[in-house]
């Protein structure tokens, strides 16, 4: 036990001691905070998996410390936002023990599915500034990969397709003999636009991306700016975590885990459906 503590202290010291970088410029002084900061999402992946040294030099398969579990545990601790109120210490410890389990370690895979980007954006919609959220995922194409939009969240779109009153839903249908009357009753679908989609098949789901692209094409919506970016990870079975960019002085900064929850397979499926609708 004591030996473990000693090893951890040594590892923490090794990680946090100022590293000698390559010579770019003239500033002298302690840069250890910058080294400790998780500067890129790419570095988040590498640290999570212990695939780089403290200077940021990559380890490759075959290197002695590649995915080394002892170093990894130190990195994993560093990857949590220490000021987040959404992370319980006990859960954090459980998560770290889970992913760094010697018999069945879990590593993040940049090209793997089950991680999504969430980008806040602003658009002008009928000349009014509106906030939209775009969800993106990496997709393989030809020789490489690209980020693609998987879903859009915009409350104006959402409220127009919010199925509300059950009684109303139950009354909105075209009776099964409508065809005999040449569907002369079809006008009912369009009489009240508020309920139009109630007449669609039960598999119908509004595609908010199509709405966005349509409005942009029609000139009703124009892109303005980007806002904060965050990432949602579902690559560790039984867990969900969120990664945000924390801009603050000190080593506990950069891309860090700001939320951590235990989730069931069913919850995972439901959450993923939100980012990646069928």
């Amino acid at each position, binding site marked *: 036990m004591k030996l473990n503590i000693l090893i951890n202290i040594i590892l923490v010291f090794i990680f946090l001691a100022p590293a*000698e*970088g*390559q*010579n*770019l*410029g*003239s*500033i002298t002084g302690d*840069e250890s905070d*910058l*080294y400790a900061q998780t*500067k*890129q999402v*790419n*570095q988040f992946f*590498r640290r999570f998996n212990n695939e780089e040294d403290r200077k*940021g030099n*990559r380890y*490759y398969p075959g290197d002695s410390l590649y995915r080394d579990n002892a170093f990894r545990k130190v990195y994993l601790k560093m990857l949590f936002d220490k000021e987040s109120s959404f992370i319980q210490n006990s859960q954090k410890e459980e998560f770290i023990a889970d992913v760094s389990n010697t018999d069945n370690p879990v590593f993040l895979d*940049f090209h793997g599915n089950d991680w999504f980007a969430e980008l806040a954006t602003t658009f002008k919609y009928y000349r009014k500034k509106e906030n939209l959220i775009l969800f993106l995922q990496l997709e393989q*194409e*030809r*020789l*490489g*990969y*690209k980020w693609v939009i998987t879903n859009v969240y915009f409350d104006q779109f959402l409220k127009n397709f919010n199925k509300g009153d059950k009684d109303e839903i139950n009354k909105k249908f075209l009776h099964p003999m409508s065809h005999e009357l040449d569907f002369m009753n079809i006008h009912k679908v369009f009489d009240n636009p508020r309920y139009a989609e109630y007449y669609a098949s039960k598999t119908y789901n509004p595609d908010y991306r199509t709405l966005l692209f349509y409005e942009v094409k029609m000139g009703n919506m124009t892109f303005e*700016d*980007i*806002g904060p970016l965050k990432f949602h990870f579902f690559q560790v079975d039984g867990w969900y975590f969120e990664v945000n960019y924390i*801009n*603050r*002085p000190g080593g506990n*900064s950069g891309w860090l885990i700001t939320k951590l929850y235990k989730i069931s397979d069913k919850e995972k499926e439901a959450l993923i459906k939100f980012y990646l609708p069928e």
Partner: protein
Amino acid sequence: MKAKTFIIITLLFVSFGFESMAQDHISPARKQAIDSLALEKVRDLSKYITLIGDKETEFSEAQRVIDRAVELFMEGSEVGVSSLFREGINYYEVREYFERLMRLNYSKVDIEWYKIEYVSDLERQPDGTYVGVITIFQKFSGYDQEGGLVYEDVTKKDITVYVKRKETQIAGKLIGFWDVLLGDIRVKETSKE
């Protein structure tokens, strides 16, 4: 002359063993050689930025340096700048960014660079070009006529790096090499407190 030297260095460092290399995979050794080239370009960019911002650099010289700096970039590259106290991002074409830097209204400007450089993995995009990001940190200080510090910030610069396979003919022989060009830059002010 500089371009020629660059091609020679590129060929020396990167083309060796090129033919035997699998096209869809960059070995660790090759990645390190490409990283060195990319870092060289980023260091050139850092030197150019320091010169462009320096009030003692003559106008004609600064223009010449801006031309050199622009040559480091892929056409159409942009610089997206955000600050802690303003919402949104200001976008500039790279030349415009350098020209604004040259025209900044301070009597003296100090641009210094932290030693740290973080180099990402190289990822392949659909057309086969490799893309990576190099992160560097810059300290900017602007002074008034009396020598008083009137503005200071530390910015994180995430610089896109494109790595493309190209071929050139030398003495009738087709030689492959990796060409490195810079792309969009994201400039973020870092928090002081």
